């Protein structure tokens, strides 16, 4: 961290000698999380400390000069029940070069989002992103070496990412070699991806976006994974009810498929409607949740028969599964938004869990001024009484964000 910070400082000192574009942005992003005490997965103090309030403060430095791009984040994080945390992160630091017109190369840490979709992007095979997170911090790039070829209506990219990392600890951290093709003609964009990695073996995917008239855009994408991974509770594969250590493990399944399809209408009056259905094979299925609910109920029922704290600890471990980007596999997102042409962009979203009737309602908005941007919103989990969303250990989220560009 200190080396990266020194590098950035060195770069800033040398700025007057080169023509460079530099920007500073300060971000203050407080959040309030209200717990759902009626959830079987809710465990309060002393097992799980309350973390209801938090605030992230970032100072972002972005600079570009020729092929060089650097993005650094000085962060100070305050969370209820935790001591303040400060850190420096190099979100991106890369150089884009060119062998000759039409053939380029890149080296460094770079954000590499390729996907098609709004709430879920299966084709983001390298830069996995939680698209449902509120107040999301800037993405952190992936170390890579890339070769890119451009023709008038298409582009190829060959990427070796996370060199030397092997299986890695998560999707963003794993090593792999990926090939991406992008092409366009008339009103259509086409995307194709392929990757070989230890973590997922072979992945193959494709997608397309088409624009119809002035108002409609339709899109779809799919990804096949020879092996997909998810976090699960290892107790589900045993006859045991309790574990003395965190039972959550990463498990893998063969032949996973992730899909997204959506339609967006945008009127000339600033209103926009979006409908998107998506299937995430790495999320828990209905049967997985049923088994986990049974296990949790059993743990709560037997808690008084085991050493103090065992029951609460086991349920708390299971509750970590609610941090997954998608809690259920089959989802439908409906979104209505408006752009008043004066910087105010309110929106309302409804995420429907198609199998169990769970609902996540989000109301939010963005207001942009000259150099400042305010955003905020409210999210409520609910729906059918026995649905997963109605039983999350967190009931509501309230967030704000203030951003000032210098």
């Amino acid at each position: 961290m200190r080396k990266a910070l020194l590098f950035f400082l060195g770069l800033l000192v040398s700025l007057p000698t080169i023509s460079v574009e530099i920007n500073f942005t300060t971000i203050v992003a407080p959040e309030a999380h209200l717990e759902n005490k009626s959830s079987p997965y809710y465990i309060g103090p002393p097992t799980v400390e309350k973390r209801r309030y938090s605030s992230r403060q970032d100072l972002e430095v972005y600079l570009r000069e020729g092929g060089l791009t650097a993005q650094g984040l000085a962060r100070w994080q305050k969370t209820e029940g935790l001591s303040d945390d400060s850190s420096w992160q190099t979100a991106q630091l890369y150089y884009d070069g060119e062998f000759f017109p039409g053939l380029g190369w890149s080296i460094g840490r770079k954000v590499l989002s390729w996907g098609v979709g709004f709430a879920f992007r299966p084709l983001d095979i390298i830069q996995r992103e939680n698209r449902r997170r509120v107040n999301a911090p800037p993405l952190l790039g992936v170390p890579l070496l890339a070769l890119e070829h451009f023709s008038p209506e298409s582009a190829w990219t060959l990427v070796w990412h996370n060199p030397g990392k092997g299986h890695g600890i998560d999707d963003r951290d794993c090593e792999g070699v990926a090939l991406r093709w992008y092409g366009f003609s008339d009103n259509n964009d086409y995307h194709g991806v392929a990757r070989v990695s230890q973590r997922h073996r072979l992945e193959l995917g494709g997608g397309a976006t088409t624009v119809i008239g002035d108002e409609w855009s339709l899109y779809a994408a799919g990804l096949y994974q020879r092996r997909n991974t998810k976090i699960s509770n290892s107790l589900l594969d045993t006859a045991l009810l309790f574990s003395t250590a965190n039972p959550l493990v990463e498990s893998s399944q063969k032949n996973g498929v992730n899909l997204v399809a959506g339609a967006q209408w945008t009127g000339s009056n600033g209103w926009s409607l979006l409908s998107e259905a998506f299937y995430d094979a790495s999320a828990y299925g209905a049967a997985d949740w049923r088994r986990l609910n049974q296990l949790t109920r059993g743990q709560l029922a037997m808690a008084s028969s085991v050493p103090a704290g065992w029951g609460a600890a086991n349920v708390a471990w299971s509750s970590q599964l609610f941090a997954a980007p998608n809690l259920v596999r089959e989802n439908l997102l409906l979104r209505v938004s408006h752009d008043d042409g004066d910087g105010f962009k309110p929106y309302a979203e409804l995420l429907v869990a198609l199998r169990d009737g769970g609902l996540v309602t989000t109301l939010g908005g963005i207001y942009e001024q000259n150099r400042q941007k305010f955003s905020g919103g409210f999210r409520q989990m609910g729906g059918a009484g026995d649905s997963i969303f109605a039983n999350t250990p967190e009931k509501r989220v309230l967030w704000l964000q203030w951003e000032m560009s210098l």
Partner: protein
Amino acid sequence: MSESRSQACRRIIFGLSLAALFDSFAAFAAEDVTAILRQADAYRRPAGSVRVEVDVELFRQGSLDKERSYTIYTKPGRRSVVLMKSPSEIGQKVLMLGEQFWLLMPDSQRPLRITANQKLLGEASTGDIADMTWSEDYQGAIVGEVDCPEPPSLLPELARTGKSRRCTHLDLNAARPGVTYSRLDLFVESASRMPIKADLFVGSGKRAKEAWYGEKTTDGQRRIMSMLLLDDIQTSRHTVIRYRSIVPKESPDELYNPAALVRNNLTGW
């Protein structure tokens, strides 16, 4: 019998001649409109590839609310790249290839295909600042010659035309899909073809904006160097667009591939 046949022949010949005359008149009128638009375009943008530096000021109830800066590269064949230069938008780009549009965000390697209506959204539509060739995008008819309309006093550089100047009033419709406004009511000075004012209509037929063009002599040439936009929907606000510089600049073809543009910062270019 033979008399009636010869009468019929005469009628047919007369009818065909009339049709031919009408066709050639219509073709002449259309050509005339295109010629007027070409002359009007020449005041807005020189022919060929250019780089345009634009400052946009957004006023609310007469007070300056927001400022935005853009650099635009255009190339013949209706190809444009708009680079956002303001601190709050820096790194964002909009690519326009004819009727195809992409939004490129700085934190993504993904060109995002957008619709013509999405291109219109935002405080200063990229269409308002980048579409500068009416002759390629519109066709229509001359409505007539009228006294040039009087500009509002909001922008000092808008010339007071006075009633002594005459304007040609053109009714223009989009000649192709994806054009920012589906219809224009355009007034150009009759003598010089200098654009004076345009009413801009969206697809629903509703007037969205009223545009006034301000001229300035640069390098010995009369040019449109500012534009005032009065919003019909947000009536309390108006937008002033100032062209800081318009210079010939040949941009490489690879800039107009969305995937290639994503990785090009274009700093110092």
